[in-house]
């Protein structure tokens, strides 16, 4: 929801068109891009669930209840209980918090570093650009998951370290995309004009370059959130992600998904659906944003 509004403002700034009102802008977006709107809706629901988890979740997500192990979905436990007797629905609700925290924190921090590096690389060009590009090449040569694994091996597990592990491989990917957008802007006459006026580098970068690459930046954040949620789940599957008893979707699939997939399928099915739906939502929304504002970023 926040993104949508943020973007809305941004659109008005970059586009010269006058939007009659924010609400109808959203309406038009939904009509042009029903899939994107569906994605947006999923995101809004997820954010709301995470915000109001304390009110929505009927049970304490970490309290064991060994008298209620492996209960199938019922009126008391809507989505059943897991091997510790914990309520699956409550854990999914609180898990939305973990997912959004990991997703937004890592993609925001990663994209911000990428933005700075990408813009700097494009603006200064020459040697700095060459060196930065080589460094980015080096990082890009590692598959995402391998880089994340290496970082986890160094820092250890836990939510905070998972965020770091996911952030680091995102930086070069974002920097690359931002750089290509920034290169085009750098050639525009008004940057030359600014330079001719003797403005400092910092001022030109902050005031003129960065605002103009906001579109790819925001699109990338959205697209990365989904990827980050997935990566977190994969790390959890390998036992290297967020740890018990923290409620987290990926973690709920580890152990539970495999051992009980058949005899207590609700333990495996619902968190899997939650992850898929969330990633689906962010991907659709990211795609729609891209189509809308910056079709050149298709390969992202």
């Amino acid at each position: 929801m926040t993104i949508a509004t943020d973007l809305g403002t941004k659109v008005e700034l970059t586009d010269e068109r006058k939007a009659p009102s924010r609400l109808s802008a959203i309406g038009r977006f939904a009509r042009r891009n029903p899939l994107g709107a569906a994605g947006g809706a999923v995101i809004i629901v997820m954010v709301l669930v995470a915000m109001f988890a304390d009110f929505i979740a009927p049970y304490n997500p970490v309290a064991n209840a060994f008298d209620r192990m492996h209960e199938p979905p019922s009126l008391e436990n809507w989505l059943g209980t897991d091997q510790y007797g914990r309520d699956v629905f409550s854990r999914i609700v609180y898990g939305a918090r973990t997912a959004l925290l990991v997703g937004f924190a890592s993609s925001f921090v990663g994209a911000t570093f990428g933005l700075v590096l990408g813009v700097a690389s494009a603006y200064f060009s020459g040697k700095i650009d060459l060196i930065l590009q080589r460094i980015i090449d080096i990082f890009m040569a590692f598959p995402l998951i391998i880089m994340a694994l290496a970082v986890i091996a160094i820092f250890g597990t836990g939510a905070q370290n998972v965020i770091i592990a996911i952030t680091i491989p995102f930086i070069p990917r974002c920097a690359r995309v931002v750089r290509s957008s920034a290169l085009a802007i750098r050639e525009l006459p008004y940057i030359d004009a600014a330079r001719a006026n003797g403005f400092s580098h910092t001022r030109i970068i902050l005031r003129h370059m960065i605002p103009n690459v906001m579109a790819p930046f925001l699109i990338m954040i959205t697209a990365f959130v989904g990827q980050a949620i997935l990566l977190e789940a994969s790390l959890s599957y390998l036992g290297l992600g967020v740890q018990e008893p923290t409620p987290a979707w990926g973690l709920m699939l580890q152990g539970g998904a495999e051992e009980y997939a058949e005899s207590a399928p609700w333990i495996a099915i619902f968190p899997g659906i939650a992850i898929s739906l969330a990633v689906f939502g962010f991907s659709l929304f990211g795609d729609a944003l891209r189509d809308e504002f910056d079709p050149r970023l298709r390969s992202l």
Partner: protein
Amino acid sequence: MNLAKYLRAASIIAVGAAVAIGFSGAPGQAAPKKGGILNFVVPDEPPSWDGHRETTFALIHPFAPFYSLLIKVNPENPSSPTDFVCDLCTEMPTPTDGGRTYTFKIKQGVKFHDGTPLTAQDVVASYKKIIFPPEGTTSARVAYFVMVDSVSAPDDHTVVFKLKYPSGAFIPALATPYNFIYSKAKLDQDIRWYEKNVMGSGPFKFAGREAGASVRGERNNDYHVPGQPYLDGFEAIFSNKQAVRVQAIRGDRAAIEFRGFPPKSRDDLVEALGGDITVQESDWNCVLLFTPNHKKKPFDDVRVRRALTLAVDRWDGSKSLSRIAIVKAVGGVVFPGHPLAATKAELEQIPGFWPDINKSRAEAKRLLQEAGVSDLTFVLSNRAVDQPYTIVGTWLIDQWRQIGVTVEQKMEPTGPFYARLRSQDFDVTMDFNCQSVVNPLLDIGKFLSTDIGNESYGGYTDRDLDKIFEAMNRAPEEAEQRKLMRQFEKRVLDEQAHSFVTLWWNRIIPHRSYVKGWKISPSHYLNQDLANVWLDK
């Protein structure tokens, strides 16, 4: 020694619709069939192939069938901690010289897989490598043989062990399944040859290895037990995901896994395959502990440490966790059911084992308050292995939550986990004691002072405790040993609150019913040479 009592506790049971286990060696049993390849799954590949230096069961399962031992646990009665039989010797010796000299006669005509004869010289060379490892080699079991003074071969068919003092721990140590008998010729040529090569005298010959995938063995037709082995060969397939291993048995890609599956997997297999699955269960000589770091505040305060153990409801935990994890028996420092183990009445005297958990938790809260840390928060270091580490850790955290203590779990793969233990960089850590032959006198070496203990990580020095251990190991009478063991237990778990026992493991092996002849033991290290295993297909 009251063996019957012990055997009852470690009884083998068949579960569900599974066929009753019929291979207890009772008369009237069908004769073993020859032939066939046994496929089994193993979670990991061992780092080297040298049994003398490795400590992982991942070495035993694929490689034990290639070697003979001097003595081994009785394959027909592997649950007994005292029933040992000869493998390469001709008869179990009676000690002479006041229990200080053991003389073994070695079987004649035994051949290594390369055709060279196996003599007493080979046995001596192997044990010298284990007990007195020469410079440049590693032996994982030097500490098991502290009582040994010398080992020698007066002739080609006699091996003599001389001990510094009589010790009841010697024979069990000798039967440790890692004590492979190597060829002296190979060891002379390169003392580390066996790290990367296989050449033994066991029932199977090494037939190849695919990196990370499998190890294969084929029948040794010159095996020193006539008629054995029954199998044409075996293939050990590596698979590190437990779910895959369970599915492999279900889809008959493998017939058995020798470590142990959780109860739910057992139930699923029985449910899906009915009579095609046979289940064997046993108490397991492994236990999860949790150890506070005595060098770190506030765990230097014995009241805080006691509060941690008082919060844990082991009796209820046993009931609940035994449904989802490979743990079951409530016990003290000694393997439950062993004559030296505490009885239930004795256990109930120890904090954390009280029958009334509410009283126990109230006392825990009182102690925390008294120590001024009623809102204690800490990190529990744990090993990133699902069964049973994660599950027991998660359970403990919930137990502590109930006395108002907030705990975060930090899981790490084996490597970093060990690094942390050794550098004592933790608040409270999950810890474990896992041994092969049930030998409580040595097994409890785990709890000794950090400087002399066998992997004791709590960071404490308690010379009085060490003294009880010494006395116990030299005590000739079981009654005396038992008395000292109670003192030892009380000191570790209660008075000094050094380190705490959670629940003992429970070994569950659901396997394809056509696998015959293999019997479960209280250790996944024992009874794995596969000589008497056969397939009823």
